């Protein structure tokens, strides 16, 4: 695929496949400062809005990667083309992850502007939590071929973080708020594994 075609691929996908989900992600980002304070927070408190609400932008952006082709007839058409469907998904994951990073990065910068004590860690930690929720939704939606199930499992895990707290061990999403960062590496690792498994699932599945 040449560069011009790749850009066109991006713009068509953005317009027809990604836009509503991007809007949902942005609405979540807008809802965050309404529910939580984001001004003049210390380092630990600043983690709260990022981990406890903004992380759901991951679910919004990554769960629907397979959604456009949930219609089997469309999937057949796409798969009959030379470009491997797996590559289509990988490209979508890449730009969704970039958008996710931009949203979280933008939010963290806004917090910094609002005199909250945020560092790169807040960005990285928030991104890891969001990516984890998103990858989980993506993997489940991919395996079950059912996007609502993906959203459901991702949201249940999110709720479990309020109910179970750090009993979730290394996969605790709100660890920065509880004063620990090491979980973020595990979340990142688990995300990469789930994303890989999700991508491979479209290869393995017999259609």
């Amino acid at each position, binding site marked *: 695929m040449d560069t011009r075609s790749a850009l066109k691929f991006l713009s068509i996908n953005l317009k*027809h496949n990604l*836009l*509503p*989900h991007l809007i*949902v992600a942005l*609405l979540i980002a807008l*809802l965050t400062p*309404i*529910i*939580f*304070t984001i*001004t*003049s*927070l*210390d380092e*630990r*408190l600043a983690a*709260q809005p990022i981990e406890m*609400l903004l992380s759901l932008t991951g679910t919004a952006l990554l769960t*629907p990667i397979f*959604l456009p082709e*949930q*219609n*089997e*007839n*469309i999937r057949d058409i796409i798969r009959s083309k030379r470009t491997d469907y797996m590559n289509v998904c990988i490209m979508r994951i890449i730009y969704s992850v970039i958008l996710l990073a931009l949203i979280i990065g933008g939010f963290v910068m806004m917090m910094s502007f609002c005199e909250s004590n945020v560092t790169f860690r807040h960005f990285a930690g928030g991104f890891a939590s969001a990516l984890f929720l998103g990858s989980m939704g993506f993997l489940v939606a991919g395996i*079950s*071929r*059912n*996007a*609502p*199930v993906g*959203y*459901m*499992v991702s*949201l*249940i895990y999110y*709720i*479990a973080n309020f*109910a*179970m*707290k*750090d*009993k979730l061990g290394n996969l605790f999403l709100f660890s920065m*708020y*509880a*004063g620990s960062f090491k979980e973020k590496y595990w979340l990142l690792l688990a995300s990469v594994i789930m994303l890989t498994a999700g991508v491979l699932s479209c290869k393995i599945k017999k259609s």
Partner: protein
Amino acid sequence: MLFFKEYKKMLFSLTFLIYFIAVIAMYFTQFHNDCKEAIYEPLPGQESYGMIAKETPDILMPAATESLVNGYLSDSYTAYPIGFYKNVHLSEKKKQKMAEIITEISGISKEDLDNFTNYEEGGFYIDENGGMMQLESNIPEINIPKALTYERFRELMRKADDIIGGGSEYSDENIVGNFSLVQKTYEDALTEYNKFLNEDKITGAYARLFCDYMGIVLAILPVFVAVSLASLDKKSRMEQLAYSRKISSVKLIFTRYFTLVVLLLIPVAITALIANFKVCGMYPNNSADIFAIFKYSASWLIPNIMTAAAVGMLMTELTSSLLAIFVQGVWWFISIFASANGLTGSIGKFTLVARHNSLYGLDTFMNNFNDFVFNRIFYTVISIIAIALTAFIYEQKRKGIFNGYSFRFKISKHKS
């Protein structure tokens, strides 16, 4: 007949399975986990009977002052101005005003406050139950001036509340409950215990706790089951066929809804049954009301299920998209956070998720009882109206008059 067909279709769906597991897990990790020790009859001469909120200036004034000084030093005040948790930080001008109040009530001058560089914020640690606990913080010594009257103190607290923006711990509604906790006397404890035994018949108190926990998940998860059910028709390409069948839209949609609600109640009934055995087993020598948990569940939890399921069905029929998940998600989120300031008896006229996270507080609950009844009936009626609307839309689609509002995140049909 139709009921059983629909029933089978839903029972073996993946979303229902996940819903089932999640509800059961919620029960065991929360309610079941909380029921470790029975409540015993208080005996005279015990060291402590727990705390109760009673307006006592000698306790209230130092406690509120300490809290306010703490808030000033960390520049962080907790408030719920519109029901939402808000962590408030003050501008320099407001800080100045707050310092004046603090000086008047604590005798600490603004210079001393600002020079108190040694201040370390408490920080948090996680206790063995997984709760986040605040460490004791290190604040300047407080000497409340003798000349300060209680009336003046309350007036200053109202001012402080205004500066914070309202809804803070220092407001008239909250200050007693937050800062004037006193030890219960033996009589207090005994009265409470007798209410627990005779009015709540034991299980009543547990039923409220049960419903509190279960209500959280039941206000959101049914929407997923409803959405995937509504899209099932499309997926198996039954839509065209279903449209041309003779059965009336009203009958079809209401049967489907009724089936869905009954099905969604299965794990609730199971957990209620387990809870009943568990609680009755904890009090082998008392006669408990064996129906209380079921009565509470029916009135408290069914409206939650009905609402979430109705939103799922209506929005999916209307937009053929996954929008319902987002709408219910936001509503649920706001409802949960709006009630975060008071987990006992937090039942407004319109709150979707009613909270009462305590075995105590029957009085608080009964004070809000009329609101509670109104609230639950309101949601039941709203749900039925929503389903009637769904049937209407379905009928229009059948006639080919209306094809649904178009949103881009369509659920596509799927070959079975």
